[in-house]
Structure formats: C-alpha cells, structure tokens
C-alpha cells in the first residue's frame, strides 16, 4: 500500500502550524490596534449637527469665551450645551435672517429643543466631572484639543481608560494656571526648569495633592 501523504505534505503541515501560531498572534495584534484605532475611538469623525455651527468661527475668529455658551462648566459635572436662548442672545441681531440660523429660530419659536449629536460620550458607568478639572487647572484644550480650529466639532481624545489614567497618574504635567484654563494654544514655559517650578507651584497652590491622595482609585470614576 502506497503512502497516502506525499513527503512534501510535511512542509505544508509545518507551514500550517506556523501559520496558525502567527495567525493567532497576528489577529491579537490587529484586534489590539483596531480597538485603539482612531476609527474605533471615533476621533476621526467630525459629527454633523442639526445646526451649521463652527467652533472655529465662534472661538477662533470671534474669540468667544468657552463659558459664554457652556455656562455651567465651572459649577457642574456636566459642561452643558447652550440652551436656545443663549444662541438667540446674539443671533436675534446677528445673522438673524441667515438660513444657517433657521433651525435655532425654529427652536425658539416652537419651543422644541435642538437635538445635538453628542461628540464626546463616556460609557454610562464612567462618572466625569468638568468643574473639578477646571478648578484644579486642567485646560479645556487638554481633552478637547484645539476647538478653535474645528469646523464641525470632532472628538480629539480617545477617551479610553488608558488615556484618562495617563493624566491622572501624571497630574503635575498637565496643570496650568487657572486663568489659562480656557485659553486655546497655551504654551507652558519653554525652559524645563522654569516649567517644572511653575507646575510645582501650581500643584501646591491648587492642592492637587499629588502625594497625599490618589485619583487613580477605581471609585473616583466608577461607582
């Protein structure tokens, strides 16, 4: 009886074993990279909104302060999206007849809220508080990026736990003076020694408590 398998099959068998191993490793790597990819984190998508609203125009060109519209950001965990009457505060006068403003006017007339598409969404089991971050000298820019350069607003940061912790573990590196919190394009002192001295001073002044109290505890964000 002749052999069922030709000797060359050995090679194929070995290759298949190798391919399986490489395949498993490969799939893991791809999966690892894929879930962290900008696509999966949604950072490449500039979301379309019911109103043609441009941060680039309002912040970058007109220089509006963040708090003009996000009124409660210093007081509440939730930064808040402006109510229609805030938009109409200016737009009853400015560009009042522009078609771009029409949905806002309609909202004011009908009393129906504008349903904005959420750009930065956290899972329901994560509790984030804007006010305390601002209060401790973390700028809007740290997470939201250069909003003053965005037309349609885009998610800048991956908002993964890894990313949150990278800052919670190295708080001092991200602290800036409170008066610069709303600044877009803040530059810390270029000289490393000077920068370190400033950060150290700010950490002490704002009681960021780098040594004493650890904000990497799970219950700080999950509960």
């Amino acid at each position: 009886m002749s052999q069922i398998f030709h000797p060359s099959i050995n090679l194929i068998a070995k290759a298949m074993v190798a391919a399986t191993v490489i395949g498993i490793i490969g799939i893991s790597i791809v999966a690892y990279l894929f879930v962290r990819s900008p696509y999966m984190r949604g950072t490449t998508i500039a979301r379309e909104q019911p109103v043609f609203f441009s941060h680039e125009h309002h912040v970058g060109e007109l220089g509006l302060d963040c708090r003009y519209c996000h009124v409660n950001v210093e007081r509440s965990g939730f930064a808040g999206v402006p109510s229609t009457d805030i938009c109409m505060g200016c737009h009853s006068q400015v560009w009042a007849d522009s078609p771009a403003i029409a949905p806002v006017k309609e909202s004011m007339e009908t009393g129906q809220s504008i349903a904005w598409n959420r750009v930065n969404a956290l899972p329901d089991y994560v509790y984030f508080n804007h006010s305390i971050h601002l209060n401790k000298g973390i700028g809007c820019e740290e997470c939201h990026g250069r909003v003053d350069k965005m037309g349609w607003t885009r998610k800048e940061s991956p908002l993964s736990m890894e990313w949150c912790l990278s800052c919670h573990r190295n708080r001092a590196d991200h602290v800036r003076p409170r008066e610069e919190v709303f600044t877009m394009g803040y530059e810390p002192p270029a000289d490393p020694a000077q920068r370190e001295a400033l950060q150290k001073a700010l950490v002490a002044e704002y009681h960021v408590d780098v040594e004493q109290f650890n904000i990497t505890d799970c219950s700080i964000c999950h509960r």
Partner: protein
Amino acid sequence: MEKDRLNLAQLRKRLAEKTGKKYWRSLNEIAETGEFKEFLHQEFPSGAAFWEDGVSRRTFLKIMGASMALAGLTACTATNPEKIVPYVEAPEEVIPGQPLFFATAFPMVGYGLGVLVESHEGRPTKIEGNPDHPASMGATDLFAQASILDLYDPDRSRQPTRKSLIQDWKAFVKELGAAQEGWGQGEGVRILTQTVTSPTMASQIQAFLQKYPAAKWHQYEPAGRDTVRAGAKLAFGEYVETHYQLEDADIVLSLDADFLTSGLGNVRYAKDFMKRRRIAGEDENDVVMNRLYVVEPALSNTGVMADHRLPLRATDVDKFARSLAQKLGLNVEGGDPETYGDWLDAVAEDLASHKGQCVVIPGEQQEASVHALAHAINEALGNVGRTVIYTEPVEAEPVDQMASLQELVADMDAGSVEALFIFNGNPVYSSPADAPFKEAMGKVPFTVYLGDYLDETAVESLWYLPRSHYLETWSDIRTFDGTATIMQPLIEPLYQSKSDHELLAALAGDAEADPHMLVKNYWQENAPEDTGDFEKFWRASLNSGVVAGSEAQEKSVTASLAGVVRPLLPASEDMEIVFRPSPSLWDGRFANNGWLQELPNSITKLTWDNVALMAPAQAERLNLNDGDLINLHYFGQMVEAPVLILPGHVDNSVTVYLGYGRHVVGRVGQDVGFNAYQIRSSYRPWQDTGLLISYTGKTHSLARTQDHQLMEGRNLVISGTLEEFKQDPEFVQREVEYERISLYPEMSYNGYAWGMSIDLSACTGCNACVVACQAENNIPIVGKVEVMRSREMHWMRIDRYFIGDMDNPDVVYQPVMCQQCEGAPCEVVCPAAATVHSREGLNDMVYNRCIGTRYCENNCPYKVRHFNFFQYVDVNEPSLQLMRNPNVTVRSRGVMEKCTYCVQRINLGRINAKKENRQIRDGEVKTACQAVCPADAIVFGNIKDTESQVSRLKASPLDYELLGELNVQPRTTYLARLKNPNPKLAEV
C-alpha cells in the same frame, strides 16, 4: 425538599440545655431541621443555581450563539451618537448635573412628614428628611422613602375611565354639570374622604357643604385613629390631640403602642427617645439612660427596644391599664394588680418615683378606654405639660370614622344617595365585613372615585379619575403638632391625573382651577397673624417646608374617669384575633410597591406575604407549623392564612396584618397574601376574642430571609446592661480579645479613611435604611421565588437575633452592609480586579469589570455581596428610568454588587471640598442609611480625624468588630447593645 416539621417540645428542651446567653436566629436553627441545615451548609438553597423558567440548555446555547454573532457585528461599527437636548430657555437655578432640593411633605394617614426631595433636572429621585420639620428632624420613615417608587410605578393609571372605557376630564365635567342640576340642596350627595388635615381641602369641602347644605361629608381611614379620638372624648369630653415629649421622659410605658416605628409622629419620637438611650461617646462617669416598659401581644419594634416586655393579649391591655391605675391610687374598677405580680409593682413604683418625668403611651390600635385611662394616669403622675402635651385637634373635622362609614353604607343601601364622590382610600377593599361597601355602592347611580390606582373601588365606580401623586401637585397638610407644610410639586403630573383640590373645585363649578392658586389663595386669606408681606411669607414657607407659627394651640384639659370606671367590654378567655396595619404595606395603599413588598419584616423576616402570627406554645398545642394553611373563623366570616410562629407572641392570640390580598392593584401586589379585612368587624376593628381556627391540611411556602446568609452560630451580637457596663466598662472588650496575625502588610492611609459606627442600642429595626439604600443605589427587587432562593439584592439587611426563651425572648437588631474590610477577603480572589481596595479604605466595586465568577461572594464572611442572577433591573420601562439615581451605575445581569458607603456621595463631597481647597467636614457626607435613620444609630465619617463623631464613637469601650477573630479589620464597627433593666425585676 421534604420539609421537616418543627418539634416544639424538643426545641424547648434544647433551648433550656443551652448555657450562657442564648442567641438564636430562628426556630429552625435551634431545632436543626433539614431545611435549616441545608441553608447552613450550602450558601444557597438547592436549586439556586438553576433557572426553571423553561429555557432548555439547547435553546440557551442557540440564543447565546445568535447574540454572540450579533455582538460581533455591532462591535465593528461606530455607535450611533447619543443626543444632547438642551433647554430652549434655561430655567433659573437649574444647573444640569447638579441636583436641587425642594421642601414638601409626605402625606400618611392624613398627616404630613416634612421631606426634602432631590430633583435631577426636574425628576424627583430621592426623598430625604427635612431637618426644619418637627415630625422629621432630618429623618424619614420607610414609607416616605418608598413613595418615590409609587410616583414612577408603571402600573399607575393614566387616564380617566367611565365604566372602564377611556374618557377624559372634559367629558367628566360635562356629565358632572348635568348631574349637578338635579342636586337641589344636595340631599343625595355624599363625599367620602380619608382623614383630612389639609386646610385648603377642608375649606373647599366646607364651601361645598355651604352650597349644598343637605350634602354629607364622611371620612374613613381603615387604619385610622378612631380609638385615639374616642379615648380623648371619654376622658375630656372633647377631641384633643395628644403628643409626647420623650426627650424629657426617664420612664416610658407603652400600652401596646409601637410608637417608635409606627403611627403618628413616630420618626420624631424615635429621635427624641434615642437621645436618652445612646450612651456611647458620652462621659462614662455620668451615663444615664431612659427605661422602657412595653405591654403588647405580638413583638413590635418598640417591644424589641423594651427593657422589660410583658406579652399580654391585646384584649387584656385594658385590664392591665386598670390595674396600674388602681396601683397609682386612681378610682377605677376591673383591675387585678395581683395578676401581674412584681412586674406591675416595679412599673408602678418606677412611674411614681419619676413624676413629671415619665409617660404612659397607649397604642393607636388600643381601645378607647385604654386611652382614657392613660390620660388619667399621665395626669395623676404630673406628666401633663411636661412629657404629655395636649393641643387643639389637628384634623379638620375629627369624627368617629367607623360610624361615619357605617352611616354612609346604610344611606347608600337605603337608596337615598344619588351621587358619591370618593377621595382615594379604596373603601371597597378596606371596608369591614359588616359594612358591605361594594354592594351598597352599586345602588348609587353616580359614583366618582379619585384614586391612586385602578383598584377594587375604581372598577366598581361609574367614573374613575386618576389621582395625582403628592410630588405632582400643590397641596398643604399638617403634622402631629399642627405645624402646616405647603406641599409643592416636584414634577408636572405624568399622566392625566387630578388632585383632590381640583376635583373639589370642579364640584364647586370651577373645572379648570389651578391647584397652585387654590392653595395660595387659601393661605393669602388665612395666613397666621403678623406675617407681614404675603409673598415673603409664602416664599419662606415653601423654602423651609414649614409654615411658621402654625402649630396647634396648647390646650389645658382635665381628665375624668367617669366614663371608664367600669370595664366597657366583657372579659373573655376565648382565643383572640388582633388586626394591625402591616409594617410595610400599611392599610394596603402600598400593595403595588415592590420595595415594600420585598422588604423583610423586621422580626419575622418575611417578604411577599402576610401570615397568622401566633405563639410557639399555641402552635405546639394546635400542632401547627410555619407555612401550614389554617382557616381563621371570626365574625361569621372565614379567611385562609398561613401560620407563622413568632417567638414572644402572647399565647391564645393570633395577629394578622391588614393590607394584603389585593385583587385589583397592579403587577406587583396582585393576590399577594390574604385579605384580613374580610373578617374585620366595625365595632371591634382592632382586637376581639372569639377566633376559631381550623387546619386545612395544606401548606404555603413563605419567602423568608431569616435563615439566609447565616453566620455559623458565632456570637455576633454583644449585649449587656447598663449596670454591667457601669461596673465593668471593658466587658465588651474582654469578649473580643483576639490575637491578630496577618501575612499581609498593614495598610497605610494618607488621606481620608472612611469608617462607620452602628449603635445596636439605638437601632429600632424600622427598615427605613434598607429602603433608603434601595432608592439611593438603584437596587432592584427580585420577586418571591427568587427571594426563596436567597437572591434578594438588598445591600443592607437587618439581622435579628433572639436571646433567651422563646415565649418572651429578648431581641437584638444588627444592620449589616459591606463592612469595608481592610484585609478584605473578596479582593484577593477576584480574577478580574473588579473589586479593589481604595486608598481611603473602601472596597471599590467596579461593575463594568465584573465577569460574575462569584468568588468574592463565596469568600465574604459577612455575606453582603449580591449577584444579579438575571436581569433584575427593568431597563425597558420608561417611567422607572426617570426614577433612577443618575450618579449610580445600573447593574445588569451577571454582575456582583454591594455597598460602597455611598461612594457617589463621598465623591460629591470631595469635589465640593476640593473646589474650596479644604478637607471634607465631619458630617458633610452622609450615607443614605445614615441620613434617613430616625434613631441616629448609624454614623459615618473619617476615622483618621480623631475629632470626628465616628472616631469618638469608635473609641467607646462598647465598640467591637463583627467577626473580629477573622482579622479582616472591618471599617464598620458596632457598639454593643445596652439595656437599662429595673434591678427589681430579675429577668433579662
């Protein structure tokens, strides 16, 4: 499983053989029945791991396969964006993400309990006590806590109906208008309300009665205060409101009064009473404690607190009161001081030696004569004006409600009623057997029922109108001392409901009246004098939840014993039946409230049922066992009820709770338990002799949490007497001396270290904390079948231990929630790092990481972790979504959950403090259980701060750790329970 029958004789013997302090949890435990052993050796009863709802393994795999495939698909697409929907015009003061608190009052039996309601963007989510309100002082009872669930109950009716067909308010108004044309002077018109203290409602009814002078107003409250009123009338010849100043009472005698956890003013009474009870943290050389004597048939929470408790048949309390009166030299007959021996002597002596500093409190359900005697005794002891205060009646129109109902039923039966307006209360269900309300109501052509639910009365009415929840409408109400609260709505009515005021306004011809204006107009005309600017007064009243200066006037009266010299009722040795409002469903109004249905009764630990409670001796004589179905024959009626043996219950007496056995109510309360109103009479509504029992041969399974979560018979509760403590303050510490060896390094804490202290001397077992925890932490209910498998989800439970013999045992309550161990056994076994130690000493629970191995639960010595075996939380019901606390994750199936000292509140406190660059102040963060506790038994705080209240309590020699020998170093510690028995009575 074959159920072993309890052999009570053997059990007594076993108990007698025990030496030292005899702590036990249930009769099954001493008897060591198979059922108990199974609980003991398996953490969960058999079958706990199975799902018997008909999905086979094969189907399960198929479904799982499909959902895996779908999960794979959805994971590869970017999720649909959530919407952010801002206000069009932002309301003033609302900061999205920051809750607001509004003062209002929770109405119960016509009286108000001041509360502050937490509102998230217009959704009320949690009830807290109002510290400015005299009945609350910052705490609430369990009903107020659970009332938030009633608001969002998906079974609430949503629109008016006429003969069960959906209609609207306009159609009703039209028909009402047509009917009103033939009313004339109102000869055939009747209004039936519950107890009314609302000044606005009372003035509306009075105006209506002026318009229709021949119309009649009836009142009926099934668990009302008829005997209290009748007692006042007997003693003083007029209606008088009585309340007590327990802060000033050294000696308290309760005549079948559960004044600490039930009835009018109980939250305040518990607060005041405990001020004289807690000694931990006080100066050790100068400890004084009040003393409580209780006479009662079935063990109540007040009976549990008693230093001396005398089990006595409810029908014999009158005789006891007479004997006491005779001892104190009052001129009454019918007493027999000899019967009560030393007990009565000691009580009488104690009372007599504390004149002006003692008080005798008669139970709301006790006979009028007992109330009259108590008034006379208090007067003789010089307590009036000191511990007992009499005021003008708080009710708008005090009447004998049972008589009022009888009169109405008779009128209806005679066909002389044309139109009947029922303002809530469900009389078809709750009327006694000799007042056949349903049949009589059928003879009335025009019946209108404004009710909370589409219930038994609604289906019998021509028109049914849904009634607005108290958080949905404007109103006003008075509390036990007469202080008025203006109730403001927290939310627009969710459905097409109307308030009492709106229906009354419609009767007066104004169908579009705004309840806000009705209430405001009333107060504009009737504001207390010297209020000055009305708008200012109105705003201040709304803001504080109290109308300043609205207390009832104190009244000076003299008690006369003329009406009660001789006993009013013949004595009888026949078996007695005692009716009491259910501690969780009250008169049945909360029957569709799942939190209350699943709440374990403090003493029986029974959920989802009511039972016939009886003494061990009686059950032994009748050869009855827990769960045996018996027929209760009384008053020519019969009802089938399961037996439950209650240690400490008086012999020859059976206690049943009202409020169960509802047939038309909603998904939760439908057909749970039996309806005790069926055998209730109107002339002896609370207690009477003449009960007969027959055994049906059937059994009923009862869902009790009692034998669950066992602790293997170790002495977990330490109790002693004040005398012992004075002689040897370290007696607790001697009992808990352990060698502490650990492989783990000591933890060190730089920042806060959270800890809790629970005072067992103060815990009344009122269960308010359990419901508060449920409301705060989005804890689901699981249903009777799941409770029987030990799957109840309460993060907090109140363990109950019996000490001593079973005919009159001493009882200790012990609230147990996650103890936040420093060497937590749960943390080291979690393979997913879903439960980890925080730098502040909490055992954090990360729900999103939990994969449901349940290793942590197995390794927890306190059994305080709870697993979502199924999707218990209803995530699809829109109304329930509104109710949830947005600051706590809603857990889904397959996730372990537990208490974390309300970490969401700690974080809120931390953020507020950090914004101001300061430390969290002591008492700034209160856990939900602590905030609600009327007895202030729970104290939470930073144990690193030696000045904090919790540190001071933990420094007390009474402080001990639960299962300290395990060296898990729990952050929650207990203060041993102390009692203050009379040295002249040898017992305890």
